């Protein structure tokens, strides 16, 4: 046991002592870190929480998405960590697996507010480590296939594609370089977003994050490569995020797009055509479905001085699930909260599809070294799609790296 480990335990012990010695009457400040954006969700809920009672005050800090984890690491290493943090679900295990997060299994079991049985399995699994619960999903999301119904009609296609081969065929029919229209757009970026988009294909192809070189996964990557090689998708999918890729769909420059429910608001306002959403196509007719699972988990740092108050905050966030969609366009991570109609028929229909797709959503990991696994995956599909390696070789190389990590 290293010295710092001892110091860490000592802090832990001290903090549990101070819990009893603190005067109960004083107002407790709970520090919460989260990402900026997300339609102002964190700021608004924190304000409402502060107004709703007088015992606990949330002091909220907003960080850019790319900075959240490494700021938290630095702060944790120097004893400056906040009480609560909202982490992207694949990043959660980095902290929970090493004892940095507070085990809240007991607290949740005793809570009147939180009932884990109504939560979707995937999001909940991403907050678990070694059978214990270290956090609670704030919301959830997934990806599906958006398609431009006007362009489909023009190309004489009646139904959205059901299989990978149909997707490729449809993309060929829809592709119209003369009018600057690509068959499809998605994100194959060198980052977490790229892995988020590619992993569902691996899973549908019989693989998992631990096994990325199955024949199905190789076929998936070959299809992705074909989309680029035949110019059925812009080569810039290699550097664009999902938001920018779907932007080209909204502008009418791509006939299909793979992205998530966060697009719905902008699409309803901007797209000047009829559009719909379909489940991600499977490898074969009726084959296994899969999709990515996104969004954030709220957790309490193990060395928080105010775990009880911090847990109250988490309970409050859970109790506001019914507000998530109407106010912040977030999908609640649980099945017992109905999504109210938005008044936009296309959006309502799309939401139904996303809710069905969510049942197949799988978490990335959880694994403490997820980021390295993720890099192996996005390096592989980028190497194959730019023609530096064959799909098989690239995925074999990724598998070698991943095997070294997962053991």
């Amino acid at each position, binding site marked *: 046991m290293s010295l710092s480990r001892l110091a860490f335990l000592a802090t832990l012990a001290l903090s549990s002592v101070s819990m009893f010695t603190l005067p109960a009457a004083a107002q407790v400040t709970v520090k919460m870190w989260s990402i900026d954006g997300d339609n102002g969700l964190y700021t608004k809920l924190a304000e409402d929480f502060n107004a709703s009672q007088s015992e606990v005050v949330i002091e909220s800090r907003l960080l850019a998405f790319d900075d959240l984890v490494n700021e938290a690491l630095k702060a944790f290493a120097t004893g400056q960590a906040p009480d609560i943090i909202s982490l992207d679900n694949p990043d959660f295990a980095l902290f929970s697996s*090493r004892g940095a997060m507070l085990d809240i299994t007991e607290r949740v079991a005793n809570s009147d507010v939180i009932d884990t049985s109504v939560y979707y399995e995937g999001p909940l699994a991403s907050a678990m480590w070694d059978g214990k619960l270290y956090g609670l999903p704030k919301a959830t999301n997934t990806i599906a296939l958006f398609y431009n119904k006007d362009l489909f009609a023009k190309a004489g296609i009646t139904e959205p594609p059901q299989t990978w081969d149909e997707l490729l065929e449809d993309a060929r029919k829809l592709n119209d370089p003369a009018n600057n229209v690509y068959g499809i757009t998605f994100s194959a970026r060198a980052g977490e977003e790229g892995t988020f988009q590619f992993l569902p294909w691996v899973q549908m192809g019989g693989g998992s994050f631990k096994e990325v070189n199955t024949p199905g996964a190789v076929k998936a990557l070959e299809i992705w490569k074909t989309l680029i090689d035949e110019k059925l998708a*812009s*080569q810039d999918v290699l550097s664009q995020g999902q938001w920018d890729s779907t932007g080209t769909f909204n502008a009418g420059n791509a006939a299909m797009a793979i992205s998530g429910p966060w697009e719905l608001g902008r699409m309803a306002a901007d797209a000047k055509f009829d559009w719909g959403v379909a489940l991600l196509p499977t490898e074969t007719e009726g084959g296994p479905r899969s999709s990515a699972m996104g969004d954030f988990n709220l957790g309490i740092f193990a060395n928080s001085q105010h775990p009880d108050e911090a847990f109250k905050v988490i309970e409050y966030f859970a109790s506001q699930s019914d507000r998530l969609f109407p106010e912040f366009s977030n999908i609640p991570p649980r099945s017992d909260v109905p999504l109210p109609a938005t008044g936009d028929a296309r959006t309502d229909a799309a939401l139904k599809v996303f809710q069905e797709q969510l049942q197949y959503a799988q978490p990335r990991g959880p694994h403490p070294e997820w980021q390295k696994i993720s890099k192996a995956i996005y390096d592989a599909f980028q190497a194959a799609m*730019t023609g530096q390696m064959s799909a098989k070789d690239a995925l074999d190389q990724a598998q070698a790296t991943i095997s070294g990590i997962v053991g």
Partner: protein
Amino acid sequence: MSRFFNSLRDGVGFDLVLVGAALLFLLALAGLPLLYNVLMSFQQVDMFTLGTLIRPWAGFTNYVDVVRQPEFWLVARNTLIFVFASMAGQFVIGFSLALFFAQKFPGAATIRGLFLVSWVMPGLVVGAIWSWILAGDFGVLNTILKSLGIIQETVFWKSDPNYSIWAVVIANIWLGTAFNMLLLAVGLAAIPRDLYEAAELDGANAFQRFWTITLPMMRSTIGAVLSLGLIGTLQQFDLFPAITEGGPANTSSVAGYWSWQMSFQLYDFAKGATISVMMFLLVLFASVIYVRSTRHEVRG
């Protein structure tokens, strides 16, 4: 004792105080972090030990691991391309502009001032703008090049492995030209006019005058520009996440970005520090060039 204070006021002591204050400041705020990185590159580091100095010793394993990474040689190649192409571009364009604006014509000084705007632009903003300009389909650079007939096919500056590093180089040249032009213009203005007049009387043409007067007289300025330019280029970070994220397939990743990625995306702090220590060697080289260049200075 009074001799000591006297020397502070009126002797070498005065010089030592002036230099010492600045050097102490730099040693504390730049030297210590540097040592910390060197130390970290020989240790095993995780999130629990990030804040301490005593960590398990790793010897040279981090160095071996870094060199064995499949992308190591690619990143090394990219770093060299990025550094030399950026510096060459900035220097040639900067020098040409400085020479051009040294001519006498109406508004020369005012228009030259406009070229300095890239100096005041934060890297983050420059990265975002160039990311838009360089986009393949909706990027304006391709539209312009196509309408001029320079290219027929869409060039995916950010996503084609043959061009991705050049996408960042283009943006970096734009960013650094102001700095080069400014310093070189200052150097040009310091060359006495009569040298040129004498040379013209001797019948030297413009090229000969440039070669025999301008270049030799500019030696120290050029040394300063190049070494500061090298350091600036190696430190360039903001453009990478904004334009290519080092992709596709690491074809535009350079040492500085890779080091950041190791530390802050893969949370492998020791390897991140190791890469940064390797960069040290490059800057060592630059500093030697600069310090040598000052040997030829003439005090006016």
